[in-house]
């Protein structure tokens, strides 16, 4: 029985990856939930918005690297991020002007807006491939590890190593800053409050003199910031490929729905629920269990509940369970 080594193995293979992935999903789900609660449709183009935002960041990063700009031990992409957000925001505002605004004017049913978002999804996906191709791209630089497994072993004398990659640390810190900024914005600023009011009761918001066009524009800008940040962090951590981002749509919406579609806190909680479930169900527990049980009882199999190829199934099953048990999600979401 070796609790310490078991704990370290758990932290190293389950907890830290889960936290990083959860933070990335939470940021993605926040964007989707925000668009849902204010613009009142499920934006199927959100995954591809993350992709194209990340493409902007990658291009800017390459430009900065070419010009010799560096962020020391941190990834250069963080320096490029604000500019990537600005470009993505402009793109989304243009999309709204060309595509979505018309449907708001004619008060189209939400499902028509979802269809329109399918069209936008196709276009963004095509543009992403057009600009950067379909191959996997790694764009992280700087120091690779905050803590290497070897250093940890030397320091602790344990057999198990604990490694924290820079991208994992960066993900957590940036996500915390982004979420804190978002909540401050929504709770404390006049514009943020007006967005919440608009989401809560559109007619009354109009009666109170809240300008809907402004609320919509700010929503797209905030969504661009969240999507680009989420996409960049995911790309730094796991590499960029256009198709993966499209597939992120599923866990992101699962997170948003599990948390309660329309609830920002719910989106964060949902992101971590989905991320940890995925990691824990697809992790081979053999190592951890071997430390915990007497030697003669050591497991022979991998003790993996499901192969990693079924990680979508995990988000999906949780989604269905939550919908059947708590139709409005963990935190009461809004239903229109």
């Amino acid at each position: 029985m070796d609790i310490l080594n078991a704990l370290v193995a758990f932290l190293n293979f389950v907890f830290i990856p889960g936290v990083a992935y959860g933070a990335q999903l939470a940021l993605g789900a926040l964007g989707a939930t925000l668009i849902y609660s204010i613009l009142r449709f499920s934006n199927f183009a959100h995954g591809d918005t993350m992709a194209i935002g990340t493409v902007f960041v990658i291009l800017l990063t390459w430009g900065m690297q070419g010009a010799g700009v560096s962020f020391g031990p941190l990834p250069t992409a963080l320096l490029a991020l604000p500019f990537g957000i600005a470009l993505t925001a402009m793109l989304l505002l243009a999309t709204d002007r060309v595509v979505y605004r018309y449907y708001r004017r004619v008060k189209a049913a939400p499902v028509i807006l979802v269809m329109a978002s399918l069209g936008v999804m196709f276009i963004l996906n095509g543009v992403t491939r057009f600009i950067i191709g379909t191959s996997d791209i790694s764009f992280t630089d700087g120091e690779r590890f905050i803590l290497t497994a070897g250093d940890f072993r030397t320091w602790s004398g344990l057999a198990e190593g604990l490694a924290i990659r820079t991208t994992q640390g960066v993900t957590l810190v940036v996500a915390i800053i982004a979420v804190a900024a978002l909540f401050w914005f929504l709770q404390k600023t006049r514009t943020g409050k007006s967005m919440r009011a608009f989401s809560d009761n559109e007619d009354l918001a109009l009666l109170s003199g809240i300008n809907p066009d402004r609320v919509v524009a700010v929503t797209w800008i905030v969504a661009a910031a969240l999507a680009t940040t989420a996409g960049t962090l995911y790309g730094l951590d796991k590499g960029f490929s256009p198709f993966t981002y499209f597939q992120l749509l599923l866990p992101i919406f699962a997170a948003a729905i599990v948390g309660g579609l329309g609830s920002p806190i719910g989106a964060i909680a949902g992101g971590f629920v989905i991320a940890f479930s995925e990691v824990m169900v697809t992790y081979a527990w053999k190592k951890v269990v071997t430390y915990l049980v007497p030697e003669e009882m050591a497991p022979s199999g991998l003790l993996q509940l499901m192969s990693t190829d079924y990680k979508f199934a995990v988000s999906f099953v949780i989604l269905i369970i939550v919908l059947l048990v708590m139709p409005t999600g963990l935190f009461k979401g809004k239903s229109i």
Partner: protein
Amino acid sequence: MSKIMAEPFLIGEAMTGGYGGADILHACTIAVDPGQIAVIVGPNGAGKSTAMKAVFGMLTLRAGSVRLKGEDITALTPQARVAKGMAFVPQTSNIFTSMTVEENLEMGAFLRRDDIRATMEQVYTLFPILRDKRHQAAGELSGGQRQQVAVGRALMTQPSVLMLDEPTAGVSPIVMDELFDRIIEVARTGISILMVEQNARQALEIADKGYVLVQGANRFTDTGQALLADPDVRKSFLGG
């Protein structure tokens, strides 16, 4: 009523129209003066709420006009009328349920860029219970308290006209009396009140002016007391 009387502060005159389709209002006239309470009563489907919404610009009029302080505002959107000093409390969905009481009041004052604290203080003085609950989500309050939030939100624009669509719908008689008392208080500060009410008798008691509508047209128009005393009105609309 004599023709010599000055133009009322707010008047919807000879309003005809509906929500597309057939007309609901037929040359209906509603008016109110500063500090007065005007009440619209009538049987179900008489077009009471429609008349009020017409005054507020929520439906397009085919004929007639709406004037505020002598200015023709018929073509203005509801939002523009809010900017002109009109405030409207819808019958349902009249608060931001997920926001705190204080945030509801702040949103009411969204158009104002000056210091709103004095107005908020006035609202809290008028509805003391709201001060105690100001950090609570408005959706968690009782029916009567929610109506107070709704009225408070509308007062935050410092309106010259406050329009209430059935403010006492679904609240207990005690709460209703309390709400009416508050509405009288509001009127005393010089604000014109235009109100649609289902509880005709109680509403007419506090009304300076009453409008009895039937099928979208004016049937009786007089002071509240006079209408209460009118045997025809009593028989047909007040249950004897």
